[in-house]
């Protein structure tokens, strides 16, 4: 987080983490499509020719609330391929919140788990603790066969701590819910630690309302 009280400007860094090919970049592409161009910068991708993220993707969002708060959200993805762990650690530094994009396919169970362990370790090396980091989990690729069942995900969600979302990122389903869920969780956590609400004169509810109004949400599922 970067704060400039004089300019009433707040920058929040959100990181999309997860195993290779789970759909992190696709999430950002969809958000890019959902948000009105006024609030949304270009989507910057630093990838290889085969569309695998090499360093990161970056989607900058910004808007002003009614109370004059200038909010910037920087959405990053990490490269999911195992070999890029040093890069993931760099991208993760100073993160304010993490969306963990998991691949719902049963065959990816282990990759999801080891990527989560990798996240925990990379946070630790950045001096951050998974226990205090705002984290949401997205089970993506719900459209595929051979995925963990809805009932099982509900059960896991009920037993665990993090909010869990289901998504078909390629169709935009569940992408905004994940993003808004993460932003709200992150704002609440930052507010709790830095008392942003009273410093910027905006409540969590007003903040979220302001944010959703700047998203061009078409249709209930959030399809384009």
């Amino acid at each position, binding site marked *: 987080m970067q704060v400039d009280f004089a300019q009433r400007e707040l920058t929040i860094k959100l990181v999309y983490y997860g195993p290779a090919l789970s759909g992190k970049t696709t999430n950002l592409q969809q958000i890019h499509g959902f948000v009105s161009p006024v609030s949304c910068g270009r989507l910057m991708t630093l990838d290889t020719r085969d569309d695998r993220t090499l*360093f990161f993707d970056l989607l900058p969002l910004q808007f002003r609330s009614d109370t004059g708060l200038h909010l910037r959200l920087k959405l990053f993805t990490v490269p999911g391929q195992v070999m890029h762990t040093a890069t993931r650690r760099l991208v993760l530094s100073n993160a304010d919140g993490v969306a963990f994009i998991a691949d719902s396919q049963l065959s990816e169970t282990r990759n999801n788990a*080891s990527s989560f362990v990798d996240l925990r370790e990379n946070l630790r090396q950045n001096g951050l603790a998974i226990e205090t980091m705002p984290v949401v989990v997205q089970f993506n690729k719900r459209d595929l066969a051979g995925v963990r069942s809805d009932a099982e995900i509900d059960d896991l969600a009920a037993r665990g701590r993090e909010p869990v979302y289901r998504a078909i990122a390629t169709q935009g389903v569940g992408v905004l819910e994940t993003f808004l869920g993460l932003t709200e969780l992150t704002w609440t956590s930052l507010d709790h630690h830095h008392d942003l609400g009273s410093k910027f004169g905006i409540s969590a509810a007003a903040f979220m309302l302001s944010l959703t109004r700047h998203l061009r949400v078409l249709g209930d599922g959030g399809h384009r």
Partner: protein
Amino acid sequence: MDDPSLGQKLTLDDLVPEGGLVEICRSFRDLFGVEVRVVPRGQTIEQPRLPPRAAYRTAEVSYDGEVLGTLVLGPYMPSDSVVSLSLTGDAGPPPLPRMKDPTAERLLRHLASVLDVVLWSGHRAFLASRMQISSSQELHRELVAKNRALTESLERVKELDRLKSNFLGTVSHELRTPLTSILGYAEMLAEGLAGALNEEQIEFVGTIREKGQHLLSLISSVLDLSKLDAEAALVDVSEVDVGALCEGVVTAAMAGWQKRGLDVKVAIGQGVPKVRTDLERLRKVVSNLLDNAIKFTPTGGTVQVAVGVKTPPPEMQSPVGLALLAPADQLVEIAVADTGIGIAQENQPRVFDAFYQVDGSSTRQYGGTGLGLSIVKRLIESLGGRVSVSSTLGTGSTFRVELPVEPGSE
């Protein structure tokens, strides 16, 4: 840690290579015949003396909400103004380009949008190169640390290895050599090389040989155990199909259990994942358990080897990341059940102790050294697993081995 992706305020120099802006401006002037300049933030815009009515146009150069400088177009002569022609012709500066104000505005907007793309690509390249540098530094740091750790553990392993081979070498030599001689001489006696023996002498020599052989196999097992201790840290991990392994072990032991008139079955449950573990150690575990079951099961009995998958109960898991970790946090269970003599409740906790056999007489009746199960326990614990027993006296025993699918996920 240095954060190459957020961080300090950008300047034009970060985004456009040296001379790049000048070149863009020059090509723009060549094309449209009007001067353009980019003045970085913080520098003052010079105002040369101009003919009356000459005009400039300016626009902010901004990137990601930050003003980085000013774009200046001109001077030009608005084309609706009257120009006084110079009478001398050759004196004075060249005439200013003439254009309509809206045209100038359009040119300025066009240049601004070209510049925006240039800055964006520049930013992208800037971030990529900083990430490249930081990543290499990270990798280097990591490599150095890993190298150090590896060197240290190599030293430790070498030391262990030295101790181990010293110890094993000594034990092997000091115990086996005399024992082998004893056995050799007993054999020569039995074969009558030192003269014919009477009935009773032959029987006594037979007992010496039998006990000697037992002692020899005991020594081998003790050596196995100490080898295990020394090698505890060295596990050779690969993807192991536990079902196939159990079938292999049962087939390999077939001659033994068929001779004893036993029925041995293998049952493999649904969806048992492959386990990342040490194949040879696991094979030894299963084969020791099978040997044990066969040994204590009377003729006509059955031994069943069952392989299944289990998810540990929720209270064993941490709630952070549960949705992702719990499904992968599975155990593979191997249960070896026999219809043998069974083990009394009070004796069950001690069956895994070295040299323990329920009562001394069973060693005599069933043979073996009493070390098989303690070897199983050490082996399985070196793989991060557990072994347990449940049994009813006279009905049979079941030995259960639980093994994590992924070693050391915590």
